[in-house]
């Protein structure tokens, strides 16, 4: 991985502990621009913590994260979009209002709200996007009136409103039905092909991780002290390129799942496709 000129994000000697209990330790990573990194691991292994640090929602205890060669800001900024499993969209705004919110923030620093002509204009600008995510008919509905899949489509579209160079997804499809998940995969891959952002996605579905990613990161503990199970944190134990057809996959989803003690079965059939970043 190193040696490439187009490194988007580097992680150096990253450590995170809560009250002296290490969660993550010695995490080293270089990610090329336009990668789709899927992150798996047993629950409690710190994969969501890692994502929150990429978002600057939490700060590393030690080590650093470099974005385009510069240290990450200490708080969330528009260069990194985020989709959470829930509460990602604003419950008090309709679908259309959720989508124009970012441009309202940009164009109306004081009121945070557009009126009249400007508002209509902002509303027209999102027509195509609404069509794209299949929410044209639901534009004036509140999130609580949408299905889980519709809410997450809205969340993804909203997260991309500021054209972030990095998109972070924290188990975004975890609460969705398998059939709807496949639709969501297509939408996400389509947007990724089109916009070319770097994606980090945490998932507990190993097949989803293999299907979507160009690179699979597995978080697990490598050091174990039987007397003190909390003594060591997790780190990246597998770092598999998934995209290039030349790479022979030594490990399939089942092997990875077994290695880290995850259930290998999935509701979705395995489809390892070749992808173009």
């Amino acid at each position, binding site marked *: 991985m190193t040696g490439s000129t187009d490194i988007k994000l580097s992680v150096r000697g990253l450590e995170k502990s809560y009250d002296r209990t290490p969660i993550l330790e010695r995490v080293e990573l270089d990610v090329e621009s336009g990668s789709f990194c899927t992150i798996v691991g047993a629950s409690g292994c710190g994969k969501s913590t890692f994502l929150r640090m990429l978002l600057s929602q939490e700060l590393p205890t030690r080590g650093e994260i470099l974005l385009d060669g510069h240290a990450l800001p200490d708080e969330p900024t*528009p260069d990194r979009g985020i989709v959470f499993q829930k509460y990602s969209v604003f419950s008090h705004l309709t679908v259309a209002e959720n989508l124009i919110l970012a441009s309202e923030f940009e164009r109306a620093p004081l009121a945070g709200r557009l009126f009249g002509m400007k508002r209509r204009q902002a509303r027209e600008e999102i027509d195509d996007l609404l069509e794209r995510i299949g929410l044209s008919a639901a534009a004036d509905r509140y999130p609580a009136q949408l299905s889980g899949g519709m809410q997450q489509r809205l969340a993804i579209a909203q997260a991309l409103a500021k054209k972030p160079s990095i998109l972070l997804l924290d188990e975004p499809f975890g609460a969705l039905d398998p059939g709807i998940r496949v639709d969501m995969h297509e939408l996400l891959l389509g947007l990724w092909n089109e916009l070319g952002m770097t994606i980090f996605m945490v998932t507990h579905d190993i097949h989803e991780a293999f299907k979507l990613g160009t690179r699979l990161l597995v978080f697990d503990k490598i050091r174990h002290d039987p007397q003190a199970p909390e003594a060591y944190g997790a780190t990246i134990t597998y770092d598999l390129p998934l995209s290039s057809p030349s790479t022979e996959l030594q490990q399939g989803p089942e092997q990875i799942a077994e290695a880290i003690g995850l259930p290998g079965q999935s509701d979705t059939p395995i489809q390892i496709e070749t992808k173009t970043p």
Partner: protein
Amino acid sequence: MRIINRKPSRLTALALGLLPFVATIVGYAIASHYRRLDNPADKLLPSLESMGQAFWRMAAIPDRRSGDLLLWVDTFDSLWRLGTGMAVSTLLALTFGIAIGFIPHVRSALAPYLATFSLIPPITILPILFITFGLGELAKIALIVIGTAPVMIRSTAQAVLDIPREMIIKAETLGASVWQMTVRLVIPQVLPKLITALRMGLVPAWIFLISAEAIASTTGLGYRIFLVRRYLAMDVILPYVVWITLLAFLLDRALLLISRRSFRWHHLGGDAL
């Protein structure tokens, strides 16, 4: 079928809801009837007609001394005090509640103080208010504010803290400033809960209003009740109590209606009370 699974029809529900009210009125009428059989001049349980007459006298016949329609003057003055006090409390709850809930440094500075302040029994402050502000309107309004604002501020701050962290982070990634997050995210999310806090605050507010009016006032619903108490005028007191209850009930319903109309999104997921 088990009783927990049997649901009343709309009509049955209405009838069941009215039953305790009717039972109270009938029970009262019977008790009053028998007392007046013993002593026709009984003042404790006046007949429904005499209460109706007294209420009519208060509402429609100008007072001999002042020429006012006492019920309406009392109602207007009391509602004005209550409304002003609650408006101030609501404004305080909105500004301080959001500052405390949203900004950790303000929270550290004010939350412990507020928690302590809200434990002072407000009535014990009343003498201090009368001494400092005199016996005018200000002292009564101040009592309502002091009695309701701390709790309302605390519940508003809690409502801000209850906004899912995910939403605030999402707003940050959409490029919002703190001010923009306040006006577009925090205030809209908190307003329906502020209305609930206002409805809850009205309960003690009425107590403080009536107490303050009873102690030092020349008008108001509380003043009137405590004034006519000297003549054992139950025929005025009881209708006034019913009237106050009705006003409180209507205020509460109006606020609920406003909340449902203005914050439809908040009431989508089923509603309580």
